[in-house]
């Protein structure tokens, strides 16, 4: 069995979300990924909870760990006089470089694509930032936690009678890596055919807007500004999250066609299901306030899990609104082996998300827990880049690895 990226070397200069998640796609399918960090200015996620045992520590964040497994960890102080030269050696060694600094930062360090391509013409470099490498706002610093609002998702999340509420965390940070990973894989294939490397410019805003393309067209064609609508849907009713027995328990449910409505009506078995107003999607959409109230009157007498089984058995799309706790014991995710439990030197045994897909011959895996800060300096700089022991000791003494 071959591994797709067995021969691919990646240097990951990026930080926080998009870049590190993108690099994981390569690492999960066999690439050798070297994550470059600063010990002087530790990466934000190393400082962000959750921490093992609720004790903060640079090597204790589960947030950082989940995005950086399958990577070797090195430290370089790029502001040290010897830092950029070492980074350049890594870029010369690599097939793929990923960076997510504010545009201009890499150029200021002498590490622009143009300069790196001179030492490594076959290099594929992905630069990703909030708004792209060019344009008047290229150099505006930013994070996904705010960009998600500019990209249109916050306006579309919440209730129409209230102010919008941002979808949890840095939602656009989940979109850009999928598209970036696809582009890198295509660029690797293109390089194998043409011998040519290239620079990829992944704007997290432009990537995010791809996921609102239908809403964009509704505006550019029909002049309609899409609006948040709780859990309602333009095409289907009933459609929502309905209360079940217990504290804050909900089932999500959607009826997309008449057979599903009939299946739901049969499962409910109450007289209101026969109400002529609820036969056919137009009637249900028109009367959905009442429909939702009646339906919730029924769902609230059920345990969510039991109700999901019953409705799915009847042929109605339905699913429990799972908590983070429940996700860890979800029967489907367990069957899929979604979580990989690895022993981390400081965190202990903990769960990493595995790939979202299985390849039948080369399924992908999680082989290595996230690196400690600078854990693999000697292995990478001496073992892989070929620095002599003296050079490595001199670098250590110089502070360039801080």
């Amino acid at each position, binding site marked *: 069995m071959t591994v797709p990226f067995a021969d691919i070397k990646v240097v990951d200069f990026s930080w926080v979300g998009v870049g590190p998640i993108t690099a994981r796609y390569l690492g999960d399918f066999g690439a050798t990924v070297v994550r470059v960090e600063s010990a002087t200015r530790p990466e934000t996620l190393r400082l*962000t909870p959750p921490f093992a045992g609720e004790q903060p520590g640079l090597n204790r964040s589960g947030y950082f760990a989940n995005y950086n497994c399958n990577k070797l960890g090195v430290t370089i102080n790029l502001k040290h006089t010897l830092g950029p030269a070492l980074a350049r050696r890594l870029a010369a060694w690599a097939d793929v470089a990923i960076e997510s600094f504010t545009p201009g930062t890499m150029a200021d360090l002498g590490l622009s694509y143009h300069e790196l391509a001179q030492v490594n013409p076959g290099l594929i470099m992905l630069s990703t930032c909030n708004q792209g490498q060019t344009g008047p706002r290229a150099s505006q610093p930013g994070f996904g936690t705010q960009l998600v609002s*500019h990209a249109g998702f916050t306006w*579309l999340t919440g209730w129409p009678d209230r102010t919008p509420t941002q979808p949890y965390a840095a939602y656009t940070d989940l979109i850009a890596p999928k598209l970036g990973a696809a582009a890198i894989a295509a660029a690797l294939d293109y390089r194998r055919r043409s011998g040519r490397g290239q620079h990829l410019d992944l704007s997290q805003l432009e990537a995010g807007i791809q996921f609102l393309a239908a809403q964009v067209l509704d505006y550019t064609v029909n002049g309609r*500004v899409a609006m948040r609508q709780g859990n309602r849907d333009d095409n289907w009713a009933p459609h*929502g999250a309905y209360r079940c027995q217990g504290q804050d328990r909900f089932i999500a449910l*959607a009826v997309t066609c008449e057979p599903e409505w009939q299946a739901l009506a049969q499962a409910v078995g109450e007289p209101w299901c026969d109400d002529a107003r609820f036969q056919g999607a137009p009637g249900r959409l028109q009367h959905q306030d009442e429909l939702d109230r009646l339906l919730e009157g029924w769902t609230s007498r059920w345990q969510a899990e039991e109700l999901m089984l019953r409705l*799915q058995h009847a042929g109605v799309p339905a699913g429990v609104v799972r908590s983070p706790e429940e996700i860890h014991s979800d029967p489907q995710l367990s069957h899929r082996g979604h979580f990989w439990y690895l022993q981390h030197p400081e965190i202990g045994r903990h769960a990493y998300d595995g790939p*979202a897909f299985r390849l039948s011959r080369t399924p992908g895996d999680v082989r290595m827990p996230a690196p400690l800060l600078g854990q693999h300096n000697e292995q990478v700089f001496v073992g892989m880049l070929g620095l002599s022991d003296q050079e490595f000791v001199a670098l250590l003494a110089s502070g360039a690895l801080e």
Partner: protein
Amino acid sequence: MSPDAPSPDRPEGMLSPFRALDLTDGAGALGGRVLADLGADVIKVEPAGGDSARGLGPFYQDQPHPERSLSWFALNANKRGITLELASGAGRALLLRLVERSDFVFESFPPGALAAWGLGFDRLRAVNPRLVLVSITPFGQTGPYAGYRATDIVAMALSGYMYLCGDADRPPVRISAPQAFLHAGADAAAAALIAHYERQSSGQGQWVDVSAQESLMGAMMNARPFWDLNQVNLQRSGPLRSGLANATHRRQTWPCREGSVAFAVTAGPTGARNMRGLLAWMAEEGAAPPALLHKDWDAFDMALAPQAEIDAIEDPVLAFFARHTPAELFHQALKRRVILYPVSTTADLLQDGQLAARAFWTRVEHPALGATLTYPGPFIRMSEATCGLRRPPPSIGQHNHEVYQGELGLSDAELRALAEAGVI
């Protein structure tokens, strides 16, 4: 060098030598679209009456019609389109002939459906050992939920993301624009190209099994490991966010005059400059409390601050923002390098200066409608090739002649017979 506009000496797209057949319905159609944007020849294969997802709105000029679905346009632009009834034996035989000439097949039927038609991976591989078959389903090909029905909201619920979204005093919400199968579709594209890269050296295709539920798992970000490491279920909290420090919450959506903005109070090595920038601006307008102006933002550790201290910072900021519109705040934030964005609508995005400067919006001519429609542009810019839209979405069966005659070499009579038999 800037990876920007296309130029004549660059190939149309990196994947131009390759072909994909796209058998998906609404779920997963983005997968083929991504390959098409990267230059592949993607052929949408629809039943004789058209893909059922053509029935979903919004519609061009609000007229429901299978040739006017904007949600379908969005996912199927850049593809060619043919009709083919897989339920018929002649249709399946034609599909196998196309599979011989293709590099990828994308499909989103319920698990087992292709195999039941005699078109399972083993059969497809028998005619084309190099084939990458990509199956996109809500929960994957096997397991207790493999046969479950799921729409967007059901996948959002079972992935855990929905639990974290919305106001605390109301039910959890999904994003009011379907997302789950876009994640699955984008992951399907990445997975297909990973398998492709391997196939180009091994000569062997494989079967890619994408689960929308798993594609969404990453959206929980730190909330998922919060349970794993600390046995804490973070809760949805409307405009606030918990989980950035133990036991406190911070505001992330800020109401202001005529709208809202996104901002976060920050401190420490990566956050102090942001806060000082905001406070200097507040001070110019007499709105900065001395305690905040004199705070040592470099040393201040948000993770250790009690809620009262965070509130004492956020309250004057909230009052300051309330005096300004999102546009004013964004304009000043850009000048002062403060990390703040407006809560944008789709209308706001179309007015955005940065997107305009990068020529993001792409106008696509739709000859059948006699209109030119404005689409989101390329998802990435590449220095070696063009990514983006080259053709409008196909009408039903638009490329039947081109594909069946031009490429499979069927005669006029054969094509007519297939049409009469309802195969195409």
